[in-house]
Each structure stands twice: as structure tokens, then as C-alpha cells.
């Protein structure tokens, strides 16, 4: 029982962390696409 409860906390911690990272990254890339659509043909220093 104790082990099961602990497993819940451990998996929860990993789940929350990875979900947060994935959501932030997805949002970031979406923002990049949105901005890029408004700047067609613009020179980008990194490309």
C-alpha cells in the first residue's frame, strides 16, 4: 500500500514535469510559426 502511494507521487512528479515542458515547447514553436507567417521573406540572422 505504502509502495503504491509512493509510486503515485513519483509518477505524478515525472508526469507533471514532462507535461509542463512539452506544453511550453509546443507553445514556443507555435509562437515562432505565428511570428514567421507575419514576416515572410525576412532575413533571419541564424539562417
Amino acid at each position: 500500500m505504502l509502495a503504491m502511494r509512493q509510486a503515485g507521487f513519483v509518477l505524478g512528479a515525472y508526469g507533471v514535469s514532462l507535461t509542463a515542458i512539452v506544453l511550453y515547447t509546443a507553445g514556443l514553436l507555435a509562437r515562432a510559426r505565428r511570428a514567421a507567417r507575419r514576416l515572410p521573406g525576412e532575413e533571419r540572422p541564424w539562417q
Partner: protein
Amino acid sequence: MNTTAPTAATDNASNASAAAPVRDKRPTSTRFTQVLGVIVLAGFAWLVVFGLLLSPDDSEQRSLVRIMYVHVPSAWLAYLAFVVTGVASAAYLWRRSRNLQWDRLAGASAEVGILFMAITLVTGSLWGRPTWGTYWTWDSRLTTTAFLFVTYIGYLAVRGLGGSHHQRARRSAVMALLAVLEVPLVHFSVRWWRPLHQGQTVEAQKIDGLMLFSLFVGLVAFTLLYVWLVLHRMRVALLDDEVDDRGLDAALAARRAEG
């Protein structure tokens, strides 16, 4: 800037949409960040494998020690991110050139730092509940971390206030330096307020080799993720600034066309 800007822009647009559809799908990535991204994914896969499966249970904390492989690296990187914000802000104000890249680095690092600090606080609570019997204690380290979190949320709000790019940069740079002043004051006042410390967490205990390695994997994965996120965030910031500039140019051109 010239009065023919709008037509030139539309010409460019029709050309570019035909020529570079791929480029606009992943506008902020380069060969370097793509390779780095693959390494980050592999690093997190390793972290999950080592953290959840391969590393042994701790004698005292049992399986809860696994939370530490996420908690400790994200905490370290969050603090590092805020140091980077402070240094970049100082560099922006210090250098006569007033390079906006420093400002974008400061903002990007703060944003990623907030993400990591949120992860730190949540994983810390999830560790504390079964270990201490409570999600939160008024320990000086926890309280300072919470204040740091709120302070940098305020910093991001200040970045969003508007104005010209250099206005934003200078205002937020001063804010970041004020935060650097504030954090030690908060830390010491909370420490005096609650002199009794909770026991050290994972660092003080005897650490098994595989545990240490898992922690190391976590640290590498989070560090590379930090670099990847900050690079992309800075590029998005640059694109956003250019969108702003172009909006201004278009408005001016429209105004001129009116006569």
C-alpha cells in the same frame, strides 16, 4: 524606410511563400538546434529509464528518491537561469552599444527559469507530502524559492508592459537588477524568521553510484534543454520585435499614403 514598402512587402510575401514553405514551418530552428533537440529527447528518455527503472530505491526515502532526479536538476537550472538573467541585464545596461540581444537573453532565460522553478516547486511538494507529511513547510529555502518565482513572474509582466524595444529593455533590466538586490534580503529575513532548518535533502546522504549517475543524467538533460529553449525563445523574441517594427512601418506608410 521608403514609401514603396507595402508593395515590396507583398511581392516578397508571394515569392517567399512559394520558395520557403519548409523554412516557415520551423522558423527558429537551425541544424545546431535540431541536433541538440534530438540529444535532449534522448537525454530525457535516459532520465526516465534511469530515474524510474534502473536506479535502486534509497534505504530511507525508498522510491521517493526518484523524484530528486527531476527536482534537483530543475532547481539548479532555475537558479542558473536567474543568474543568467541578472548578468545579461547588467550587460545590456553596461555596454554602450545597448545590444538588444542581451535583453532577449535576459527575458528568455527568465521565462525558462520560471518553467523550471514551477517544476521544482511541484516536484518538491510531491516529495514533501509523503516524506514530511506536508506539501509545504516554511523553511527558508522553500520560502525564498517561492518569492523568487513570484518576483520573476512580475519581471515578465514588466517585460509585457509595452513601449519601444529599448524602453522595455532598460525598464526590465533595472527590474532584474532590483530582483538581484531583493532576493538576498528576502532570504536572510526568512532565515532569521525561521532559524530551525528542515533536514538536508538528498545531498547529505550517502549516495549510491547508480543514483549519482541518474542525477547526473538529469542534470545533463535539463542543461541541454535549457540551452535549446533559451535559443528558441530568443529567436522568437527577435521575430516578435520585428513584427512590431514592421507593424509600425506599415502604419507610417499608410499614414503617408493618406497624404
